[in-house]
């Protein structure tokens, strides 16, 4: 069902506008990082809708019962996808935000570590899940997300991002799970 090269066809005419709608902010949050700002994409209704439509077309017939979105920018995309394909939306959040009983997964950052949490009972064995975030860089956050869902008994079918760093082009996977993304980062 999945090909090794998981990027959408380069000929999809919507992708050019999606790339152009992303703004690069140099040296944010620190020197040397060319930050890929998707808030400008959210300002363009047609492009935002096209972005959602591409994901919906991919996932709507795959029996996906869970769309898990990574706080906070995964929240921009995940709920609309979930609504369109009839799935539950599960927010994966930074520590101490979710009010009920949670499970936590630590993950490593370039400097230090962070933690992602999911409500106990949000997923159950038999659920088929996708993980949504705006961008995948090292894959650390997505790995933590995959762990949380699997610990809850779900099967993670794929991870989906708007932007994927180019080192993922040749091996479109995170922890053995397929990775799908629409565009590569803009240089400027």
């Amino acid at each position, binding site marked *: 069902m999945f090909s090794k090269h998981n990027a959408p066809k380069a000929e999809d005419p919507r992708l050019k506008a999606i790339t152009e709608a992303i*703004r690069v*902010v140099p040296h*944010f*949050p620190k020197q040397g990082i060319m*930050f890929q*700002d998707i*808030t400008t994409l*959210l*300002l*363009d*209704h047609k492009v*935002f*809708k096209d972005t*959602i439509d591409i994901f919906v077309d991919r996932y709507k017939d795959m029996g996906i019962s869970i769309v898990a979105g990574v*706080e*906070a920018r995964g*929240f*921009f*995309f995940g*709920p*609309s996808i*979930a*609504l369109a394909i*009839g*799935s*539950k*939306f*599960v*927010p994966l*959040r930074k520590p*101490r*935000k*979710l*009010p*009920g009983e949670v499970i936590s997964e630590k993950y490593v950052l370039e400097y230090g570590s962070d933690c992602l949490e999911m*409500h106990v009972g*949000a997923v159950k064995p038999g659920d088929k899940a996708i993980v949504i975030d705006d961008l995948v860089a090292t894959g650390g956050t997505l790995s933590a997300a995959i762990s949380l869902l699997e610990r809850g008994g779900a099967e993670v079918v794929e991870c989906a991002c708007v932007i994927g760093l180019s080192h993922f082009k040749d091996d479109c996977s995170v922890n053995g799970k397929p990775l799908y993304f629409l565009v590569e980062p803009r240089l400027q």
Partner: protein
Amino acid sequence: MSAYRDEDEDPRLHGIKTKIRVVPHFPKSGIMFQDITTLLLDPKAFKDTIDLFVERYKGKNINVVAGIEARGFIFGPPIALAIGAKFVPLRKPKKLPGKVISQEYILEYGRDCLEMHVGAVEAGERALVVDDLIATGGTLCAAMDLLERVGAEVVECACVIELPELKGRERLNGKPLYVLVEYLEV
């Protein structure tokens, strides 16, 4: 005992109300936290929630849906997409990468701050502010201030839940507020 009160006879509201989970004493003792994550686990109830807002705002020439971090990011974008508006995230400090304007607001203890990207909203645009819940109204006021400072017209504030005992509605300076459910501690 606690109760939700109807604003409206719409039959979808009952399903929405029953899906909101109350978590006692979070984040601190005495607060009955309104957890909407359980609503998001019910595709029909979540869709009904969005539909109720979309039905109200479609065709009203709304240009901007501004959502307050983070739970406003869950409801705002689907509404924006359905009514043909742009979505503007209003965020905690230092999250937005570009040039921002900031609005400070008072909390029960201390203060907080909301930011919006410069250029996201233009003068004359008609805007909604969306969040999951209105309590004291402090955050919504800060959101409205940001939008009005750039010359936008705030048409209405829209929340899933209101805590009427905290009188947030009165704090909105006459701006209309639309909510789906009210939570009352009886």
